[in-house]
């Protein structure tokens, strides 16, 4: 797996370059989860956050850490998608669109 280099000039720029690299990698993973598993950006972002929490705890020195990361993101995204599909199916089954109240019209 390739990754871009952080262009460096001074110490402040070094931190900025690192942050830009982290942001780019994070965004890449969110895009991957969103477009491969048909998730909203918010859901995909949650998936990636969850994957990074796991990385802090479980990432070990052996193997390819970036491949590992993709694998974790994909596992979580696949579960997320499965649950979302199940929710949508149950919703359609039990509350067909014609019986649903419009947003904001709940009784107070």
């Amino acid at each position, binding site marked *: 797996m390739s990754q871009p280099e952080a262009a460096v000039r001074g110490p402040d720029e070094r931190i900025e370059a690192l942050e830009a690299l982290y942001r780019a990698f*994070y965004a890449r993973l969110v895009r*991957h989860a969103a*477009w491969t*598993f048909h998730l909203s950006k918010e859901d995909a972002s949650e998936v990636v956050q969850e994957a990074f929490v796991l*990385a*802090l705890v479980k990432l070990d020195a052996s193997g390819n850490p970036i491949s590992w990361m993709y*694998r974790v993101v994909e596992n979580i995204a696949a579960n997320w998608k499965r649950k979302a599909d199940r929710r949508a199916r149950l919703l359609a089954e039990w509350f067909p669109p014609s019986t649903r109240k419009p947003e904001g019209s709940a009784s107070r």
Partner: protein
Amino acid sequence: MKFDGRDLVLGTAGWAARSGSPPWPASREDDLAAAGEFLADLESGRDEPSPGPDVLFASCALLNGEADARRAFALAGELFAFLNRTDVSPFREEVADLQCASAFAGWRAARLLGDAAAASHWMAVLADLADSTAARHFFETLLDGSAGPEGAERLLADPSRTLLLCEWLRRKNDSDPADVRALTQRLHARARELFEGRETNETHYFRGQLAMTAGVACRQLARRAEAHAWFDRAQVDFRLAGLPEADLARVEYQRLGERLEERDLRTIQESLPALERTFRDLGMMEDALKCRFLEGLSLMETDELPKAADLFRDVCADAERLGNEKLLATAHANLAHISGIMGDADQALAAAAEAIPRLRRLKDRVALSKLHWGLAALLRSKGHLAEAVGAYREALAEHAALGMRADVAALHLVVADLLLDLGDSTEALGEISQALPVIAELGMAREKMAALSLLHESARRRDVDRAALREVSLHLRKPEIDER
């Protein structure tokens, strides 16, 4: 400053923990709207700067939902060219994902238009992407046992990825048919469950292609009944996919390959011209050229060797013109074998020298092991018997490593015959006894059963019947290579 992957993952994890989920400047819907504008610009020929990977992924999604297949087809080509000339992402894998998604859009639109030649072109583009190190690594990681059952699900989650997977498996058949057999069985079963009730042209194609790849793997492994059943399954799904004429013709080609293994040359001679014409009419020139392989191999079966050699020389020229390295390598390998049988060692070695580096580059272990078998036969025909035994045993080990049991059994019998020439009947009996259980398991054509019984009986008496040995060994497998 360059980091390793671990630094990048942990650094980003720390950054994400500090900054929380960053807000996304654009939702999926915003990306899709921007993609619509980007595609319109692309259509009007304006050379836009890259709108960013999100909008590019959204553009691929739009193309796959585009009702006007002609527009989708033209735009997929434009988008693919744009991705090749523009710096769209700092991550190489992301660029490959985008290329794959746009190639999928082109392939899909070509099939909707009924344009088999254009669909073949996009499939060749995908084949190159499937061959990349990143794709190989990705599929191998997801398909190894430790990835669990979710691995297959993840591979079938996105149609462009599924198509890439089908192509990757088709290619892997040349290097590891036993593994492909196991993988395709698993993936086909999962695809049946996942696609149930939401079938589309593409899902039928994926299932059909997985079944066909499984069938080809079984053919390589001499599991004839199993191969036949897989081709039946492929046919059912391809009938319901978008471009049945082209896909069914490819199944028909495999069925004629089966006929060759059964030595049913008459059916091949009768059916091949029509099949080749079908491929030509559909603009599938590489598939049309593959038909000539079967013609050449059936000429070898009828001992028309000079005619077969001329034919394979023509195939080499055509494959070179089409730029198809694989067809070229396999044709050279067959030419090496024919020249060997005809006793032209110089020509055989020259053809082998053309074939070997190409087959190595393509990681076509199946064709390489067959070529080594052919070279062993050449050593034998030149009277270098002891060296031939060594070369045959090397070829035998290679076939055994690939799980090609019928070829292994045939090679045991060839080695036994050679050992008898060298006066070593004890070793020869050892070779025969290793072959017989496999032959019994694989089954033989009815007319060869008498020879097999004779061989059994003579081996039991420890006095080998040479005629029976040769008849059985000739019927089993040979070192010629057909194009899968």
